[in-house]
């Protein structure tokens, strides 16, 4: 470029470089400094370590339900009757606010076991329906007393303000009577 038409004024100077690089350094450095102060609020190693739990299903009779804790949240496990499974399968998907088939919410070959995170998808209350005496809502599943959401016996939202079906946690069958959640 030596001897070309461009004058010195058109060439990027050392100062131009510094006025760009300075703020860029400041911004990147600032973000890197702020991140630890933001990330410290995310779940710590102790909370992450509790992320899986094994459950023995053998003592749960047909028609019974149990609640276990996983990641500080209740997990509902219901041993469904034949009638309940049939009902859950016969629902037209177009009638559901959050359409999902019953088979998509259970494991193949283990359809009688329904495993759900027992937290209402509206604002996080625990729905009623695990105990025999509980109100189970209009669809024989669960009923959230806080703001009146009704879930069916596949844990799908049917009526009320909750936007989504009860979440199915990640789990596998380790044997016919044992599952590992998480």
């Amino acid at each position, binding site marked *: 470029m030596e001897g070309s038409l461009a004058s010195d004024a058109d060439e990027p100077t050392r100062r131009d470089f510094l006025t760009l690089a300075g703020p860029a350094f400041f911004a990147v450095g600032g973000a890197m400094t702020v991140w630890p102060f933001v990330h410290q609020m995310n779940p710590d190693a102790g909370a992450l370590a509790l992320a899986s739990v094994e459950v023995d299903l053998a003592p749960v009779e047909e028609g019974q339900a149990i609640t276990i804790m996983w990641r500080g*949240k209740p997990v509902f496990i219901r041993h469904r009757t034949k009638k309940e499974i049939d009902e859950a399968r016969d629902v037209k998907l177009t009638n559901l606010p959050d359409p999902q088939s019953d088979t998509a919410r259970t494991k193949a070959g283990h359809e009688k076991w329904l495993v759900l995170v027992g937290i209402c998808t509206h604002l996080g*209350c625990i729905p009623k329906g695990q105990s025999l005496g509980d109100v189970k809502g209009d669809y024989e599943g669960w009923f959230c007393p806080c703001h009146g959401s009704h879930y069916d016996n596949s844990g799908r939202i049917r009526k009320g303000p909750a936007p989504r079906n009860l979440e199915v946690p990640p789990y596998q069958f380790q044997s016919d009577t044992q599952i590992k959640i998480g």
Partner: protein
Amino acid sequence: MSSHEDTYEPKGRVSKWMDERLPIARMMHGQFVDFPTPRNLNYLWTFGGILTFCLVVQIASGIVLAMHYIPAESMAFDSVQHIKRDVNYGWLIQPLHAVGASMFFIAVYIHIFRGLYYGSYKEPREVLWILGVLIFLVMMATGFLGYTLPWGQMSFWGVTVITNLFSSLDEVIPGLGTAVVTWLWGGYSVSGATLTRFFSLHYLLPFVLCGLVALHIWALHVAGQNNPTGLDIKTKSDSLPMSPYAVSKDLFALSVFIMLFAWFVFFAPDYLGHADNYIPANALVTPAHIVPEWYFLPFYAILRAIPSKLGGVIAMFGAIAVLAFVPWLDTSRVRSARYRPYFKWFFWLFAFTCLALGYLGSLPAEGIYVMWARIFTAYYFAFFLLVMPFLSLWETPTQMPGSISEAVLGKGSK
């Protein structure tokens, strides 16, 4: 700051020495003794002072409570009971703080309605008003965080429900809401990690409030106080020095307010709370009927009135945010509702609407209550978005007095 007579006269060598170096006494004298106040202020203008008192009580009692409280999941509930039963004068100081929060909100609501009725948000007091809205917002955050700390059932489930409001962001960007809620909780549910951070922030925010209050008072002393006529101070006879006139009125009103405060503290310390909060937090049992503290009820009713989760959250936050725009939403040039024959009635209907929403917020969200909550929610927003901008187009204000003095002393006085 507005110019007015300065009667400060340092007496003695020390005050003269100080006055030449840091004239803080001169400034305080100018702003809180000589400061001209409209001569027609009524008792509704005493709530600024009362609110300052409330903030001081909350900070003083809160610092004491923090000396004995343990923000740990397993001990928080018991440590509050320990304060009430074992700590010397804990039986007095704990209710002072808990009841104090309610008294703070009673005073702030009266203060806000006073501003709305007399048009205290209008030019040149827009910034003063917006600072007030920010103070209200930080007060609500502080109250909410503080209610978590006793770690009873209502504390725990109140936090669960309110923090879950942010999960509605999942409807905007999938996964965002869940990430925000997990971050707020420091886990996958409300836990001890949530409690400790809430304690830390609950201790921080009152000092943010102090800063905002200082700015609020500064802005007030630049624009000067509004008054029941909404007229500006034009002549010297329109005003009186703040001390002793406004100060003695403030002190009398404060005494009456303290009597009400003391009645709750000594005779009904739990009246404004919930019995469920005497049950330790239990992550496996949701109380049958979750209700926030009374001062959040109108907003809670708006949240539940909207049949969509995200919509409800937007409406609830919108109900507070709309206040910040009031200086520009109200198009009438007349400040005081005293001279606005129709606005006056819309205002009282609005005040009734807020009370009605508060009542509905305490009831289960079922059947007829939901319908009423929707009607009142609609009027809540209509007041700001329809009445304020458009009423002045056809409303003829009534005859206003020529000056503040004329309003007080009648025509012919100077």
